[in-house]
Structures are given as structure tokens and as C-alpha cells.
């Protein structure tokens, strides 16, 4: 009797297409199915049920927010919510990537700087950013600066520490090698270490984006006049799930696309990164 390669069960399973694709899609189909059935049951009991609105109602809401010009402001609500949220998160995470890269590499490479700053960085990274949100609102008011600062503070320490560790993980031999090839101390930093761990910075930003969204939505829920998080919390007052659910999907979709773009950048621009680990 010859052995057969199992497709699903056990340690040795090798799922193959088309079964593989069906297996990947199954949880999604189940989730949507459960919602549709649940919604149907609840609507049969109470046609005005707000908790699980039918798909048709969600489509109405999307059409109203995304594809109809707001009569009063002349804007498309979903578009302006998206651009203001994305610019906040974009500026915040770019700032923290920039600072985290410079500080992290410097601290990782120069033992003097490390001794000076490592303890305080570790200490500051433990401060819960949401706990200082009120302080930020007092200092910066309810404008953009406070929100961007929260995203910055919420992500910069993680990126800095990740850059610090990645720099320290570079074998000492490589630093010495660069010096024997005539690199100055600054060239070691800017021309040897930084290009080498840049893809790791992209990875680090990817991992920080989850936290960045958290802080964005938290700050928008408190004080804002536009933004994806603002809209969701505004709709909570009307219990309008037909807006909240599509917005959550939209945020997830944006997050997914950004993550995919960053991974694609690493794969296509830094092909050596994963291969030479």
C-alpha cells in the first residue's frame, strides 16, 4: 500500500488548490453567512432593528456618504473622513519612523549614546500614551497637533527600540570591516548600518501601524470634526450600524492595502533582506 499525502489532517498535510483556496475562503463565507442569517432572524422579529441592518441598508448608507455630495459643505463625507484620518496617521507615523530610525541607530551603534539614552527611552516607552492624551489635549488643544503627537508618541518608542536592537544585531565584524575599508564613524552609520537596516524600519512601521490606528481612532473619538474614527463614534449616538459596519470594513481594507504595499516594497526593492537573514 502506498502512502498518500494528506491534504488537510495531520502534521504532514499539504493543502493543494483548488481545495486550498476553498479552505482559505471558508471562514470568510461562514462569517458573512452567520451575519446574514442573524440579520434576517432579527429583522423578521422587528423590522426596525438597528443592531444588524440588512445589506441593502448598508449600501444606502455607503451611497449617501461616499458617492453623494454633501449639500451643505459640498464634500463627499467618506472621502474627507478618509483623507483627514490618513493625513494624521501618515504624518504621525512618518515622524516617528524618521526619529526612531535616527535615534535607534545612533543608540545602537555608539555605546556612549546608548548609556546616556537607553534607560530613559525604556522608561518613556512604558508610559501608556492614552493616559497622556488629556495632557496632549490641554497642551495642543483639539486641533491636528494633538492627534499627530499622540500617534507619534504611541509608536516612536517601539520603532526606536526595534532599530536599536536591529543595529546591535549587526555582527561586530561588519563594523570593523567597514572601518578597514576606510569608513569614518559617521560613514559607518549613514552608509553601512542605515541602508542595511532600512527594510527592517519598513517592517517596524508595518508592525506599528496597528497601534497607530488605535491612537488615531481614540483621539478622533474625543475631539474632531472629521475622520473615520470621528464618524464611527458620531454614528454610535444614533446607533446607526449601517454606517459603522461599512466604516470598520473600510478601515480594515485600508490597513490591509497599506500593509501589502509595505511588504511589496520590501520584496521588490530589498530582495536581499529576507534571503540573507
Amino acid at each position, binding site marked *: 500500500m502506498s502512502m498518500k499525502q494528506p491534504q488537510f489532517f495531520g502534521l504532514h498535510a499539504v493543502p493543494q488548490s483548488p481545495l486550498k483556496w476553498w479552505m482559505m475562503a471558508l471562514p470568510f463565507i461562514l462569517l458573512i453567512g452567520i451575519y446574514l442569517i442573524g440579520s434576517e432572524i432579527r429583522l423578521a422579529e422587528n423590522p426596525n432593528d438597528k443592531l444588524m441592518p440588512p445589506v441593502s441598508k448598508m449600501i444606502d448608507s455607503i451611497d449617501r456618504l461616499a458617492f453623494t455630495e454633501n449639500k451643505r459643505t459640498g464634500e463627499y463625507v467618506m472621502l474627507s473622513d478618509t483623507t483627514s484620518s490618513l493625513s494624521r496617521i501618515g504624518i504621525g507615523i512618518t515622524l516617528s519612523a524618521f526619529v526612531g530610525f535616527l535615534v535607534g541607530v545612533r543608540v545602537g551603534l555608539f555605546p556612549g549614546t546608548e548609556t546616556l539614552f537607553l534607560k530613559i527611552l525604556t522608561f518613556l516607552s512604558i508610559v501608556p500614551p492614552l493616559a497622556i492624551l488629556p495632557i496632549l489635549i490641554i497642551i495642543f488643544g483639539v486641533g491636528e497637533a494633538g492627534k499627530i503627537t499622540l500617534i507619534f508618541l504611541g509608536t516612536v518608542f517601539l520603532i526606536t527600540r526595534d532599530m536599536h536592537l536591529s543595529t546591535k544585531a549587526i*555582527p*561586530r*565584524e*561588519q563594523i*570593523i*570591516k*567597514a*572601518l*578597514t*575599508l*576606510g*569608513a569614518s564613524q559617521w*560613514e559607518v552609520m549613514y*552608509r*553601512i548600518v542605515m*541602508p*542595511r537596516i532600512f527594510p527592517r524600519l519598513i517592517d517596524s512601521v508595518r508592525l506599528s501601524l496597528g497601534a497607530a490606528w488605535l491612537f488615531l481612532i481614540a483621539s478622533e473619538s474625543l475631539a474632531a470634526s472629521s475622520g473615520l474614527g470621528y464618524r464611527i463614534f458620531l454614528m454610535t449616538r444614533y446607533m446607526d450600524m449601517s454606517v459603522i459596519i461599512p466604516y470598520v470594513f473600510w478601515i480594515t481594507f485600508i490597513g490591509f492595502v497599506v500593509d501589502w504595499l509595505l511588504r511589496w516594497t520590501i520584496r521588490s526593492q*530589498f*530582495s*536581499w*533582506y529576507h*534571503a*540573507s537573514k
Partner: protein
Amino acid sequence: MVANELRNSNLLHLEDVYQAYGDHVVLDDIDLSVAHGELVTVVGPSGAGKSTLLRLILGQELPSSGEILVSGEPVGFADPSRGIVYQKYSLFPNMSVLDNVTLGKRLELSFFQWQKRKIAIIDEAMHYLEKVGLNSHSKKYPHELSGGMRQRVAVVQALIKRPKILMMDEPFGALDPGTREDLQIFLLELWEETDMTIFFVTHDLEEAAYLGSRLIVLSQHYSDDRGDGPGVQRGAKIVADHILSRSNLSTDVKYTKGFGKLIARIRREGFDPQHRQHIREFDLKHPHSFRTNTVEEVRCK
């Protein structure tokens, strides 16, 4: 010859070099002088501080005490006067083969100078790569090369900077035997062509005896007048210093009787913990071998 003459005439000169980490003495009063154009191989049992000695000369760490001179000048931390090829990590994984080789040139030029001289430098690098048979791989990243290819690139990368001395830390240690022998021949050809000075650390006795024009045995297995009482911390010393002669590059020499005898002798001198020569019996007849008196010895006289 006496130490004072050697320190100015020879390329590399170490005098009274000690290295200790806490209580643990690794190198115990190393005196060594190497002439220009020598291919020095260093062997010794593990823990004898071969790599420590290399790191001291390279400037990867500083000695606890003692002097290290290159061309009569005291040396400090790593700089282009000493090149290095490591067993691993010699190449930068984020640069192509060509970029790795030209790095030493690029680092010494500003952006505009580099733009001006780019073509000539790339030509030179490609010429070297052609010589080592890797010109068709110039666009590849190090991870796309085999171990032997990587080490060839690493040698070229170090040589383009024309260091006064090329340090090699078990450069062929991770290669399979066939590739290893290819690279030994490659290195010898390069050495004969370029008249450079090489300091080659290895744990492989055959490799050391085949490659070297001078072979140094570093060992902690010896005895001296300090006795074996508690508190006597003894580190490795140079216990033998051989001149080796070579008539041709053929690896057949490895199978001759004389070669086998030499290996057996080195094994006895440095690698046998039972066989402890007294410090006065070391074979240090090499013309550049010298020993300065230690503080204790001066006091005894």
C-alpha cells in the same frame, strides 16, 4: 637580531603584548616581528588566543599592555592600514558583489569625485573580479553566491584598498575540502603576484603548513619558572616559529613524508597538553624571532 632593529625594519612588530579578560590571561607576553612580504600562518589549540591575537593586530580590541607597530608606527583601532577577511560577515548583504568590491573606493571619495571616477574604478573592480572568475556574478547579492565565491569576493574587496597587511581569520574554515584547496591555491597565486603581507589564522595544521612562509604555534601548554601554584595565571605564548620553504604550488606536497613529519612536530609542540616544553626549550630559531625579558626574568638576573 635584537628587538630594536626589528621594530623599525619589519612591517609588523609586537612587543610584550598581553591580553587578559578579568583574571583570565589569554595572551601572555607575545613578542613577534613579521617582515614585509611574509605569509604568516598562526595555529594553536582552541582557547590559545589565535583570534584574540588577530583582533589585537587588527584593532578590533586593544591589548591590556604591550606595543603593536605597523611600519614602525603604533596602531590603534581598525583602519585601512590593515585589511581583514573573516570566515563569515566579510561581505555586506545589502550590496551587490560589485558594490561590495568598490566600497573601499567609494568611501574615500565624495559624491562628485565618485561620479567623476566611477568608470575607472568599476573597470578596476571588474578586472579583479575577472581574475577571480566572478565577473559574470557582479550584479548578484552575496546570498546568491556559494561560500567559496563569497570568500574570493571578500579577498578582492579587501585588496582593492591595498592594505599594508591582510589579516585572515579562518577564511576557508567553512568551506568543503575541495573548494578549500582551490582557495588555498588561489591565495598563494595572489600572494606571489602581489608581494603582500598576510597574517593567516587557522585551526587546520595542514592548511597552515601548506600556505605559510612562516608558521607560528601559539599554545597555553608549556611550563616556566612561575610554577603551578594557585594564583599563577598563564596565557598562551608563541611556542614555536618555523620557516617554511615552498618549491611549487602543487598540493601534492601535502602527501610527502617531510610534510607529515612537520605536522606531527607542530602537534607535539603546541597541541599536546601532556607535552609541556619549558619556556627555554621553545623552537624560536627563526631569524626574526625574539624575546624580551619579562619583569620576573629581569629581577632574577
